[in-house]
């Protein structure tokens, strides 16, 4: 028996090596067709874990009434700015009576195509994040997610870069603001890794709501002052349109940035709401159910489960399709192998003429088939083993940063 195994292994190995291109192709086709359904299942599981973890960051989300998807993907995944936002004063509705704390989120800006997220320092306390360097403190400072730091060319604390202009063709639009990185966040395997975080005031400045300029009276630019108003406290110069607006957040000038108007009216895109307890959550949810309500307070976890249910529904269909393809590929591979055996009919007939039994010839063929199947299984196993490692990159590439 041992001799038969040795001989069959030898004959199989020589035959497979002799036609190595065919052998490799068959093994790869088998391996990929068997490994893909496993990889798909793993990716879906990883995606659902990531989405649930993200939803868990925010028990409730406050935003303008409208699409829940816009609100969740905009404020939790920084994918796109929701069509409608809310004002800072709206946060008071959830923070009143100390029922919850609200962390505002403003999105929509980018720096070298990396999303810039405006929030408060509380965001990092809520998501338990630490940074190499320090967190942002003033206008123009930012902390960069781990992946974003790499994508921006290896950003380290102290590096500076500009935000992207809102529109290159809009000369009258918002100009880029120079940001200074003060820290790089530790990796979290979440959308935070791919974002740049700034203070809300910085985001408003990016949107053109705040700015810094020279003292009009001291400006040498012609037309910088278009008039003077005499008041009890003295004369005040009226700045003209020609007064240069500085966009660089040079060191020591952050305090020169100022905003015209009340920050209570300034826009945000949503807010992470953390109720103090379940009762507070129930009370808050009940306050935003009116038909004429312009805001919505929703549970991201429930939304995520609905999305996942849909994704897994599609995943099951894809899995069935992948399974059917695997079966089809296995049949094609088997047919190809059978054809290759038929092409070697003379060789097998020779073995019979030289005294080999049908059984022995069958063992030789089976050994060859087993070797191919084992190689295919090894490839499938490698795919399955590598999928969890590659999942973060695959999912990020597949979701466009979601």
């Amino acid at each position, binding site marked *: 028996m041992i001799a038969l195994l040795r001989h069959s292994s030898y004959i199989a190995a*020589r035959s497979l090596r*002799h*036609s190595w291109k065919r052998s490799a192709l068959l093994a790869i086709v088998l391996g990929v067709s068997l490994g893909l359904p496993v990889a798909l299942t793993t990716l879906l599981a990883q995606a659902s874990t990531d989405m649930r973890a993200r939803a868990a960051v925010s028990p409730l989300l406050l935003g303008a009434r409208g699409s829940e998807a816009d609100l969740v993907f905009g404020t939790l995944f920084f994918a796109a700015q929701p069509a409608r936002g809310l004002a800072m004063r709206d946060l008071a509705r959830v923070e009143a009576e100390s029922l919850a704390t609200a962390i505002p989120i403003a999105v929509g800006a980018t720096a070298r195509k990396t999303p810039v997220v405006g929030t408060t320092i509380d965001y990092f306390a809520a998501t338990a994040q630490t940074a190499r360097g320090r967190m942002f403190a003033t206008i123009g400072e930012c902390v960069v997610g781990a992946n974003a730091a790499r994508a921006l060319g290896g950003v380290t604390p102290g590096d500076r870069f500009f935000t992207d202009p809102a529109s290159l063709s809009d000369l009258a639009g918002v100009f880029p603001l120079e940001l200074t990185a003060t820290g790089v966040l530790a990796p979290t395997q979440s959308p935070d890794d791919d974002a740049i975080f700034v203070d809300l005031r910085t985001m408003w400045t990016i949107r053109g709501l705040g700015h810094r300029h020279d003292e009009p009276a001291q400006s040498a630019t012609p037309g910088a002052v278009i008039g003077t108003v005499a008041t009890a406290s003295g004369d005040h110069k009226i700045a003209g349109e020609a007064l240069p607006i500085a966009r660089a957040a040079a060191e020591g000038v952050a305090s020169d940035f100022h905003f015209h108007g009340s920050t209570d009216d300034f826009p945000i895109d949503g807010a992470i709401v953390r109720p103090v307890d379940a009762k507070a959550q129930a009370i808050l949810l009940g306050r935003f159910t009116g038909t004429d309500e312009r805001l919505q307070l929703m549970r991201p976890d429930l939304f995520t489960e609905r999305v996942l249910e849909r994704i897994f529904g599609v995943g099951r269909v894809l899995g069935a399709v992948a399974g059917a393809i695997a079966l089809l590929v296995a049949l094609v591979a088997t047919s190809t192998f059978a054809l290759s055996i038929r092409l070697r009919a*003379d*060789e097998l007939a020779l073995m019979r*003429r030289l*005294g*080999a*039994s049908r059984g*022995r010839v069958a063992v030789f063929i089976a050994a060859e088939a087993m070797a191919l199947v084992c190689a295919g299984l090894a490839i499938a196993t490698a795919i399955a083993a590598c999928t969890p490692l590659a999942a973060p990159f695959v999912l990020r590439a597949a979701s466009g940063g979601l």
Partner: protein
Amino acid sequence: MEPPTRTSTKPASAPITPVLAATELVFKRSSGFTLSTPAFALNAGESLAVRGPSGSGKSTLLALLSGELLPWSGRVFAAGSEITAESESARRAYRATRCGQVFQTFELVGSLDVLANVLLPLRLHSSLTLNAAAAAHARELLARVGLADKEHRAIQALSHGERQRVAIARALVTQPRIVLADEPTGNLDPALKRAIAELLLHEARSAGAALVVATHDESILPLFDSTLSIGDLATGNLNTGGGAPR
């Protein structure tokens, strides 16, 4: 029934039991083809050329002698047993262990190198053992047929003459008592035919094996001890006088 015996062409003091013997054999195919051959016997080291035109049944006769086919009538005695009375398994064992075969188209395995082709028969039956001694014997055979330096060559890299030499070495690797060769020079250049035939005869004689060669090549017939002529549906004509056919 005892196997037929015949006296050697050389004087001998006592009858010798032949290694290969057949009574009159008849074999028919459904197509109407009928092969009929006279009785004959071969002792160890003797050779027989089976001559006849294409389609006359030379290969069929070799298949009867190897036990691949069974005759309609007649008996074949080979290497001490009546193979026509044995089971398929026993006949297969006979082919694997006691009967070496050489084919017109060499029938070598392309995925195996020269030495592996020679050793192939030892992998095909459980009663044979492939060990260091067998490998040494195979190498010795390759040296005898002039391929000592080509044992690891791919078959595709060999000339036709070299391939047939490999086939001869393979036929002898199990140290058979009978060697059957079907048109061993049929695919060779005229210049090579005689050399290969002489090599086959020499090696079979050296190994003490009875050799039966089917051929329609008249030029090599004088090399054999005896000749059996078979023709279309004709009764064979056996010349046991050695040398040229009658």
